[in-house]
């Protein structure tokens, strides 16, 4: 499995594999990202979905670096990355999860069954992005995949837990959003004064646990 490397700017190379994004590939990406972070010419590494972008210090020869990245990739093994496990308490339904009934109706099940399905799996943080502390989670059961709302909300509150298509996750900050909101968490997803400032990082695992169910 060879990576393709593209210049995306004068100081960044994006490494990709053919789709789809899968956990086994992603595990190799995390390990790869960790190795790159140690290179002197690399300023920052960002893990994407089935890709990794390396931001270099200005003046780095990207052609030479591109060769090194391919060699490092070949040596990189999946599975060495040890993430933390984090439980996320969620208040489901009521004013905190306005779309819970709609999601249940879409699947022809009870709201209790939606909650049972949502809390069953152990999700994996594939990557962090979009907002500080926002995780892209893998592992939403197929029988919970739900289309996004036809009209996105101008603002969903911080902590909102939602489902958008094949994805689930939570918003650390109030944001415009088209996801179906089924609950809210009060877990500190981002704290500027803490180190690390985000509760989650790529490679961590997450379970949603019921804190309360509102009518």
């Amino acid at each position, binding site marked *: 499995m060879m990576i393709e490397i593209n210049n995306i700017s004068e100081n960044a190379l994006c490494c990709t594999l053919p*789709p789809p994004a899968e956990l086994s590939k992603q595990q190799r990406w995390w390990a790869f990202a960790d190795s790159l972070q140690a290179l002197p010419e690399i*300023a920052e590494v960002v893990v994407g*979905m089935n890709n990794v972008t390396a931001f270099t210090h200005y003046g780095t020869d990207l052609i030479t670096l591109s060769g090194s990245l391919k060699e490092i990739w070949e040596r990189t093994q999946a599975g060495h990355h040890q993430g933390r496990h984090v439980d996320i308490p969620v208040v489901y339904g009521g004013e905190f999860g306005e779309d819970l009934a709609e999601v249940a109706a879409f699947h022809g099940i009870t709201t209790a069954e939606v909650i049972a399905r949502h809390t069953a799996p152990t999700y994996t943080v594939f990557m962090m992005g979009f907002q500080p502390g926002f995780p892209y989670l893998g592992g939403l059961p197929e029988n919970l995949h739900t289309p996004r709302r036809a009209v996105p909300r101008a603002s969903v509150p911080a902590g909102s837990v939602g489902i958008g298509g094949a994805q689930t996750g939570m918003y650390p900050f109030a944001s415009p959003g088209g996801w179906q909101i089924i609950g809210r968490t009060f877990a500190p997803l981002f704290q500027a004064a803490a180190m690390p400032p985000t509760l989650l990082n790529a490679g961590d695992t997450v379970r949603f646990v019921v804190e309360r169910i509102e009518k």
Partner: protein
Amino acid sequence: MLEILECATLASVQDLGRYGLRRLGIGHAGAMDTLALKAGNLLLQNEENAAAIEVALGSISMRFERDTPFCLTGAVYQADLDGESVHSYWRYTARAGQTLRLIRAVHGMYGYVCVHGGLDVAEVLGARSTDLKAAFGGHQGRNLKAGDRIALGGSACEMQRIGIAPIPFTNRIHALPSSEYTAFTRNAHYRFWQNPWTLQSDSNRMGYRFGGSVLNKVKEIEMLSHAVQFGTVQVPPSGQPIVLMADTQTTGGYPKIATVVAADLGHLAQIRFGSKVFFQIATPQEAAKLKRHNEAYLHQIGVIAKKK
């Protein structure tokens, strides 16, 4: 202390931005026109990265509570210090109690009020920049308003009045083709480099939206989320390009036709709503040359400022 007396526009504390935390979704923030911020800081014998007030287009006034060397850079403002005209790219010393008024930008979009010693706000996650979306950094993580009091980093002193050559703005913005360039039609390439693009009024520190001709792709491509940066030119399905600016989110999913070269980001930031830009294709060598050109300019400012 510096006290904000009146603020009728978006103004925030910014330095050169936050680096090293993008893998956690924490963005870059920082000045829109970093060249202007660096120039102002060097003129005041500050570190290039010292924090300043970035003012977008409109009016703000502030009172200095002690003798403070300052300068305005970036957008050319109609401004005065207790009624005496203040010119951009000149170094002045405000006396304790004097009021600096920025009335309006007459040329350009983002102005910088730089002060000797920089603004002494707490560093949060490695920078003094305000992250407006996540509401941290800078002064209480938000835009400035009347009544805000911000500490000054330097000590009371006086500096000789000198001026430097301002950065001539240009609307010819150099860019490098990016990774999905070949996903666009030849016609789209031609249009992107040859046609003028008008800056839309819904543009902000996060992204500059341009209107003009439509950029079509050879075929629709579905992209997985990947890193984006200040300068990335992404093209959503509408076919109208968006250049991601200082407050860009860390990851995105739209195809990238190009990336504005680092040296021209400041020029782009100064384009006003309704004005036109032309994107000009560059090679990595040209991008590096433009960057060296900027660095030489800044070096000269540093030398002049130290002599006086």
